[in-house]
């Protein structure tokens, strides 16, 4: 058998990291949403917000567990499959991951315990604080991982001696030029993804005529976030494009499938094409004149270097950046359209009754996940053939492990992830279908955060933390 160990290792990393990113992009948003619900509950005393928080905490717990275990794998894969990478850039990248563990992982993991099991065990303010700390932890985690990844995209603040990168200026390394906007882009993506999930579930319940009081809250909170975040994300994305143009011109050329090295403007915007890498041109191209210049240079006649300006061995494969980008942007515009259409209906007072809108909204839940995955394909495939741009090529970064062994572990990962994550998604869906559980069935009786409603049987007032979070022991 003639297997390329690098290719298998790449496929394995792509597979495990793609699986992993789905869960953080959900839990970052979900933890913030749960914390927000609990804060509203504390301020208004409206029990419904607490019950909604309890309901979403169950979904969160399943998603978080899958995020933790799939993330654990990654922190060891750097060594098992990419030991040359660990060695060459370890002095620079590893401390950033170290800070992620120290400032984020412990915070999330520890306060998660209180968040899940502390409903009736700790004072309510402490429980709310724990939820906020978990949300803050997930955000901090994104900070460090994006910092490490941004440095790999465009390394600065280091020196290379004998092929090994050494740190020179930590501030420059942590805040490398592409980092701030990429962090903003990712966090907004996570919050937007969750907003559409919440919106979709609310719409689903309203269509089915179930859990209507909860559904209205979800619909409006989800939609409210989406109305603001969807256009904000388009703006951040546009700004990120400018950063890519400045620091990673070859990636930009790949995203746009723009070939000509020194073409004078104006450059058209390629809407669709089949990039032909062998002949260095696009087949079946549909393009809009001037628009490429306008979007990328913010002028009608500006230009930027195409792929032919770079030697073929320094160009990334085109399919990922080109198609991934179009899927991501397409979903972005769809999100803006749906959010604003919902906003208009809300303003006219038809939001909860317009079934066509509710139907469309209920289908929107996977959109954020697809956009996040597409976006990461754009950025990671667009960085190729480098692992750390200019320092280490992907082809030189793998471990001295035989291809057959890497293939074995790849097959194991596919089988295990296939089983575990299918069940996880199935269980999450089952929780979502079952819906929120009102306290002891007496819906409508409000009770304050520190004063459980009187007159209920004790067991019903304070279902054990375990039961409260397991779904009322059903």
């Amino acid at each position, binding site marked *: 058998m003639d297997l390329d160990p690098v290719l298998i290792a790449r496929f394995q990393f792509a597979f495990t990291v793609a699986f992993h990113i789905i869960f953080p992009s959900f839990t970052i948003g979900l933890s913030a949403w749960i914390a927000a619900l609990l804060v509203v509950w504390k301020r208004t005393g409206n029990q419904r917000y607490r019950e909604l928080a309890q309901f979403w905490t169950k979904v969160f717990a399943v998603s978080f*567990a899958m995020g933790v275990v799939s993330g654990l794998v990654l922190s060891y894969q750097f060594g098992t499959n990419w030991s040359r990478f660990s060695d060459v850039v370890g002095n620079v990248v590893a401390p950033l991951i170290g800070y992620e*563990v*120290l400032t984020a992982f412990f915070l999330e993991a520890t306060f998660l315990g209180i968040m899940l099991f502390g409903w009736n065990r700790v004072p309510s303010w402490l429980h709310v604080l724990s939820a906020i700390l978990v949300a803050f932890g997930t955000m901090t985690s994104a900070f460090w991982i994006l910092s490490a990844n941004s440095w790999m995209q465009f390394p600065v603040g280091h020196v290379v001696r004998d092929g090994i990168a050494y740190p020179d200026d930590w501030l420059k390394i942590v805040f490398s030029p592409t980092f701030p906007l990429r962090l903003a882009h990712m966090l907004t993506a996570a919050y937007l993804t969750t907003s559409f999930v919440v919106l979709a579930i609310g719409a689903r319940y309203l269509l089915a005529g179930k859990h209507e009081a909860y559904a209205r809250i979800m619909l409006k909170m989800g939609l409210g976030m989406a109305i603001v975040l969807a256009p904000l994300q388009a703006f951040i994305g546009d700004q990120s494009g400018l950063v890519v143009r400045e620091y990673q011109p070859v990636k930009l050329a790949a995203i746009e499938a723009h070939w000509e090295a020194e073409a004078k403007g104006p450059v058209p915007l390629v809407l669709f094409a089949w990039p032909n890498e062998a002949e260095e041109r696009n087949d079946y191209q549909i393009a809009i004149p001037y628009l490429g210049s306008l979007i990328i240079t913010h002028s009608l006649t500006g230009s930027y270097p195409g792929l032919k300006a770079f030697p073929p061995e320094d160009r990334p494969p085109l399919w990922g950046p080109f198609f991934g980008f179009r899927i991501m942007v397409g979903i972005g515009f769809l999100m803006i359209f749906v959010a604003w259409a919902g906003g208009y209906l809300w303003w006219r007072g038809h939001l909860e009754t317009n079934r066509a809108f509710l139907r469309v909204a209920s289908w929107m839940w996977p959109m954020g996940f697809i956009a996040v995955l597409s976006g990461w394909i754009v950025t990671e495939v667009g960085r190729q053939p480098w692992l750390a741009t200019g320092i280490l090529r992907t082809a030189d970064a793998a471990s001295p492990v035989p291809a057959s062994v890497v293939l074995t572990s790849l097959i194991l990962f596919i089988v295990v992830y296939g089983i575990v994550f299918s069940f996880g998604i199935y269980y999450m869906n089952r929780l979502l279908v079952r819906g929120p559980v009102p306290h002891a069935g007496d819906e409508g009786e409000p009770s304050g955060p520190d004063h459980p409603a009187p007159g209920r049987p004790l067991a019903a007032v304070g279902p054990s933390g375990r039961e409260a979070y397991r779904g009322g022991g059903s």
Partner: protein
Amino acid sequence: MDMTFDFYLPVVWAGLIATAVAMYVVLDGFDLGIGILFPFARKEADRDQMMNSVAPFWDGNETWLILGGGGLWVAFPRAYAIIMPALYLPVIVMLLSLIFRGVSFEFRWVAKPKHGHWDFAFAAGSTVAAFCQGLILGGLIQGIAVENGAFAGGTWDWLTPFSLMCGAGLVCGYGLLGATWLIMRTEGEVAERGRRQARTILLVVLAFIAVVSLWTPFNFERVATRWFTAPNIYYLWPVPLVTVGLAFVLWRSLDRGGTVAPFFATIGLFLLSYMGLAISTFPLMVPPNVTVWQAAAVPASQIFTLIGVVFMLPIILGYTAFVYWTFRGKVKPGEGYH
């Protein structure tokens, strides 16, 4: 920067990583132990109780494993780049097992009443993960082939009778931690079964400790030199003696109905064995040839992260202690947290 600084910084880091791994072994040890003992509890209520006793903590416990692995990469990137490919299969299988047992904490409850296969996943995942950690430990102690600063051995180098024995030994060790945890944190049938099991497992664990203590100096000359030459032997002789004393204390308190003492005596036993291995190995990071100084990251990297550790570690320990204190007390049969 003078010589002493370059000398001590990697030593400090080696100590920190050793501490993280020790925290991991003790903390995740007892919750993996619960999984290892799962098959011996047949009743669903007993299993619920066992799982409840560790459910709020497992995630934080497992984070020490990330700190151990991450810390190794931070402070000793070359050692990380050698060890991981060398112990490729045990590491990957351990991770996959941890996936199964980790998600079981959630899936088992949402799957009810059809949760049998998650009981199995929890038990098997915990046991296999513990076994793989023993293989990793054994594989590291017996040494890794290194050329030009990179792993240069074969895929199955780690597979030896010694590493297999370490695997079995660690499964039993974690089982003992789990059993004594149950004695401390549960009541009724579960606690009583824990006490019965602890006694049996203790004898097996002591046998393993004895075998490793004899096997390593006879098989690896560097270990014999470390322990049995003057002046080391004058300082080191109390280590085995205290170990034997502690084992005796543990046995007695199991007999006399102690609830808290067995767990902490077991932790002591673990830490002493761990210290014994550290004495045998230091200053090697990757036996038999790579020392902590050769494997170290540049001081700039070690210092940058050390600053974070100095600030964050006390905070982490503080809130970890707080969560354990919050969920203190016994988990009773048929009861969740109130």
